[in-house]
């Protein structure tokens, strides 16, 4: 009786409902965040947990490190290229999924699959797809005569070595990552498209606008807030993701052709044991991502208000 009355009070019920989230965020986001900050200004390593403050030394060291700079450039390429592809393909996919056709739910299910399947599993699948010797893609190319003979399109060698050549490795990593976040982007964009009133699109049609004018003058501007949010999410997932890179290439082929910040932090901190420098690398995300989030959210808000 007494607990019931207590729960009826908003000032009790509200905080109580929020509590799990607050605990979760404090434990799994707040605590590691603070720890990485604490580590980044110290000389802590796995072998020597004795804590001594060294100031900004770690940051100076990583900025001067050519591997870090290479990883930073790679991360930017990786993020920018995959997001661009994801937004364009996601839009096309959403447009297709909006149409009515037989077996739509099966297709929707299949489209969502890469997102629901564990990423490690999918990446391992691709590891085999892109194998240097047994790659089925190479096998198909050879069968079609595009690979393996002196006059074929992709060269005379028997395999493409997807993960073994610097440019091709980056391409492979990007494509696998696109495969992974495309469903999420498509579903967000689909929801955004469905939220545009049908009458507005029909009005444009009656007003004489053809498909591309409707797309660029009506639909895309109205989708802008949704696209902004999609870019935001996709950027975060890409910028901070190391699973695809780690499983496919571990940052290789040498020298660090596909090394990104997240994998570098892992390499330094966990594999190399230098927690302090790893924390400094990881913290580098923070101002960058916070800045992107602020810009995108501001643009989105502006678009919604008008």
């Amino acid at each position, binding site marked *: 009786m007494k607990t019931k009355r207590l729960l009826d009070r908003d000032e009790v019920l509200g905080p109580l409902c929020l509590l799990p989230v607050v605990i979760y965020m404090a434990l799994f986001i707040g605590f590691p965040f603070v720890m990485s900050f604490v580590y980044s200004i110290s000389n802590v390593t796995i072998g020597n947990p004795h804590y001594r403050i060294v100031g900004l030394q770690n940051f100076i060291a990583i900025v001067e490190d050519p591997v870090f700079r290479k990883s930073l450039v790679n991360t930017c390429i990786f993020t920018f290229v995959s997001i661009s592809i994801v937004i364009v393909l996601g839009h096309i996919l959403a447009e297709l999924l909006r149409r009515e056709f037989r077996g739509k739910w099966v297709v929707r299910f299949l489209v969502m699959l890469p997102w629901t399947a564990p990423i490690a599993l999918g990446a391992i699948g691709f590891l085999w797809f892109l194998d240097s010797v047994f790659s089925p893609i190479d096998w198909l190319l050879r069968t079609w005569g595009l690979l393996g003979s002196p006059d074929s399109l992709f060269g005379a060698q028997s395999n493409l070595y997807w993960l073994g050549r610097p440019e091709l490795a980056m391409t492979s990593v990007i494509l696998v990552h696109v495969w992974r976040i495309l469903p999420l982007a498509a579903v967000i964009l689909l929801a955004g498209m469905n939220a545009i009133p049908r009458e507005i699109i029909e*009005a444009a049609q009656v007003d004489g606008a053809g498909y591309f004018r409707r797309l660029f003058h009506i639909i895309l501007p109205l989708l802008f807030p949704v696209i902004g949010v999609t870019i935001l999410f996709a950027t975060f997932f890409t910028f901070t993701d190391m699973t695809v890179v780690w499983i496919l290439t571990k940052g290789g082929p040498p020298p660090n052709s596909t090394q990104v910040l997240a994998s570098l932090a892992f390499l330094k901190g966990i594999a190399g044991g230098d927690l302090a420098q790893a924390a400094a690398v990881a913290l580098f995300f923070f101002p960058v991502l916070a800045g992107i989030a602020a810009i995108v959210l501001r643009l989105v808000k502006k678009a919604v208000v008008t």
Partner: protein
Amino acid sequence: MATVEFRGVTKNFGQVKATDGVDLAIKDGELLVLLGPSGSGKSTLMRLCAGLEQPTSGTIAIDGVVVNDVSPRERGIAMVFQSYALYPHKTVFDNIAFPLTVEHMAKEDIRKKVEWAAGLFGIGRLLDRMPSQLSGGERQRVAIARALVRRPRVLLMDEPLSNLDAKERHYARGELKKFQRGIGVTTIYVTHDQVEAMGLGDRIAVLCEGRLRQVGTPEEIYDRPADIFVAGFIGIPPMNFIEREGRIAGFRPEVFRPLELVQGDELMRLRYRIERVENLGGYRVAYGVVDGTPILAKLPHRYPVTEGEEHDFAVSIRDIHFFHKDTGLRIEG
């Protein structure tokens, strides 16, 4: 300006017949109201005319030219949607200008035309605003200005007043009629509101379940309804029906009056048991029964009645409509 002609137009959505063999001709410069309950096919008919839907069979002709295979943009039509469908990210100016920019018209000409249309509807001072900053009535004017700015051959309006409050709607109706007369554009107007239909239409086409029931002037529809459906749909409160000598006799609540107030030689006298009286300000409506059939009456001003008692009421024979018992069609005579 143009005529519009539907010939045997049928549209199926799966198993459902939205419109079923509709033949209808709209004259040049006329305002024709498509009236019917929801699901009667009136919006479908308009969307077919706009080219937003393709007929399953039959033809639609504008100015005598069959337009079945002509895209909406080439039909020379304009449409005002129920939600107004203003482009929320464009200013009022850009909204009205949109149909013109699509035609790649010169900037200066666009400005002139937009100002002309805006002046017509008194929205010149709103041109820099965004749609979200406008009231319902203002949005409606912008929507109509956008529709008229490129001088369409046919104007289609889909319940354009239904999002206005009752008072705004009253004024908007008068203005609409004035503009339509002034510009003289052939107009098809869809509504489920019979008051709007009676007040606006040069002619009314009554639809039910995809079929055309009657086409005529508001007077014809009211005075000589073609069947029981039209008779019952038009008029507030709705017409009473009672079975007499193997036919259905229909009479309106406004002509069903106390015996001593009814004039004429031939009367149909009825014992009317009044169960409840509703005071609607300007008039009162009585809910009662005659021989077990529920009957409504519009009571004369200050006429005393007692709830729960029987009264002598009557209708003049002239005011009674007779309908066939099985087909529901009007019996002349």
